[in-house]
């Protein structure tokens, strides 16, 4: 079904709420640190931060099991952390160190982690969707009971591979959970300037795929929508398109002057900051006290410091190893 308006959800019990908050905060603080480290040249290349969108990865990831596969984009710090890849190996990767999750070969855009079935951040927009379809096909053929979660942005919806992949996944009845993080912009191009039909979840009908749209600024809404969606995929073995309506608070990347949207618009959205909103709700419900938050921040701060220390301590891959992993043999 397609719901244009986000479904509103009953609220949660304490531990659950604190877990969601902690995961969102870990991402927020990690990326704030990354931006700082980028500015002093410790991190290079492209850096696409997820700040403002944390509820999407955190909420969605809770619907997945360790057996499920994940395909992400170049804006994947959030997905990687929410999936449980140690912060240190991510930070080391962004430093380009050998102890990074991709041995320094990938950087911010290309996190990989085999033990956690994290099949990578893909930097060609739309390029991850066919990979996800193939992973799901492999599972189906091997009778593995797992689904493949495929993250992509609203901009990817315009690419031909979106169309081809949804058709193939539906045609072959493959367990793919398509997760569209619709932050209303593809770089500087607003949704209404790249989509003739701006309701992305509605596009699923063209493939006979079930879909839903959820409030991507609300971790609880995302989580329960993801639970429903993942449930459907597991039950039916068919794909599902879940659109998460969210917003990017920072520029597209460290290279983006952000000229294409008004400060107003950004400020309006910041009023819906997934973390502060969620904090407020927890407080209202008396599920969160100042002390909790302080200790939470403290623990996260410590984790980040360790991560940076680990990255700093990491060694560089020897130059002789340059061509090591081009071929397996």
């Amino acid at each position: 079904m397609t719901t244009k308006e986000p479904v509103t959800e009953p609220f949660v019990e304490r531990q659950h709420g604190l877990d969601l908050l902690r995961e969102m905060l870990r991402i927020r603080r990690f990326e704030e640190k990354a931006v700082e480290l980028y500015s002093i040249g410790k991190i290079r290349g492209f850096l696409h931060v997820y700040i403002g969108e944390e509820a999407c990865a955190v909420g969605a990831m809770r619907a997945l099991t360790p057996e499920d596969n994940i395909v992400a984009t170049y804006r994947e710090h959030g997905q990687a952390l929410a999936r449980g890849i140690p912060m240190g190996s991510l930070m080391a990767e962004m430093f380009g160190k050998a102890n990074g999750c991709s041995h320094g070969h990938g950087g911010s855009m290309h996190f990989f982690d085999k033990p956690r079935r994290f099949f990578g951040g893909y930097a060609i927009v739309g390029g991850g969707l066919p990979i996800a379809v193939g992973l799901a096909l492999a599972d189906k053929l091997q009778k593995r009971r797992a689904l493949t979660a495929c993250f992509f942005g609203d901009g990817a919806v315009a690419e031909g591979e979106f169309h081809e992949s949804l058709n193939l996944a539906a045609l072959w009845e493959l367990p793919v959970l398509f997760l569209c993080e619709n932050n209303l912009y593809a770089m500087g191009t607003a949704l209404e300037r790249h989509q003739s039909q701006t309701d992305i979840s509605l596009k699923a009908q063209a493939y006979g795929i079930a879909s839903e749209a959820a409030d991507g600024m609300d971790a609880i809404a995302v989580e329960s929508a993801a639970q429903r969606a993942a449930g459907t995929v597991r039950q039916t073995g068919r794909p599902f398109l879940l659109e998460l309506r969210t917003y990017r608070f920072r520029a597209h990347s460290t290279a983006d002057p952000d000229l294409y949207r008004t400060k107003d618009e950004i400020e309006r959205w910041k009023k819906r900051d997934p973390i502060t909103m969620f904090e407020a709700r927890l407080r209202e419900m008396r599920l969160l006290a100042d002390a909790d938050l302080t200790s939470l921040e403290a623990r996260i701060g410590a984790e980040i410091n360790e991560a940076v220390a680990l990255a700093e301590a990491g060694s560089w891959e020897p130059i002789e190893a340059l061509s090591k992993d081009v071929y397996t043999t």
Partner: protein
Amino acid sequence: MQAKKMTYREAIRSALRLALKSDPRVFLMGEDVGRYGGAFAVSLGLLEEFGPERIRDTPLSESTFVGAGIGAALGGMRPIVEIMTVNFSLLALDQILNNAATLRHMSGGQYSVPLVVRMATGGGRQLAAQHSHSLEGWYAHIPGIKVLAPATVEDARAMLLAALEEPDPVFIFEHATLYPLEGEIDETAGPVDISKAAVRKPGSAVTLITYGGSLPKTLQAAQELLKEGIDPEVVDLRTLRPLDAATILSSVKKTHRAVVIDEAWRTGSFAAEISAQIMEGAFDDLDAPVARVCSAEVPMPYAKHLEEAALPRVETIVSAVKRMF
């Protein structure tokens, strides 16, 4: 040795059947590989024998079914993807260059992509400008993949078996004019060593270097030249990437002359790479500059006489060689 007469097409099918029988992870997907039997009838009968789960007709979605092949390989399967022809492979080139070829290195060695992609290549059938490309040279430029171009019935079977033992992506280019080619082969034979080029005809006067669909023409030219007292050695590259430079160089060091025959457009052809490597590896042994016989630099015309004029021919090979003496 059970010698058996079969066509190039049947030899590929024989390898496909063996792989499908012996490895449950192997499956074949591509446009019309099932009910139609394959655009070149390579997979004819396989759907009936192995069923629709393992012989999968795909929609016209080159980028996605090739990408799905990559994903399935990551997921533990051993996919064989058929792209109907190289002309359509451009639609999948992003998946090939940016994903298949990079994933192992980019992931720091965590993931391999054991994928085999087969496609028909080449001209000569009056299919005009959009259906006559020879782009295997482009593929040979890509680190992270291997590129094979079997030119004989035996290789058609044995090189596919070898490809299926590779842990990394392998691209096999089958020249469309070779499918009906007949030969006697050992159907019980296993894979061949794809790291080695093959000397198809020993000789002393000049080295003719070629691969795939140009081998028959080149061997014919060699016979013509023999009549005229020039005894060429013919080297079939077989594998374009990684290239067996050693075999090329040792032949050239013996003959002191080389002509490269390649159906691709001359400028930027793989023949240029061969020429450059001979320059780099056997410069002092050369009695004459390495020559290239390639296709004219035009979109392939439909008309027979024009297409023939555009492609390498026995006569053009012969005269290129004679110009060297």
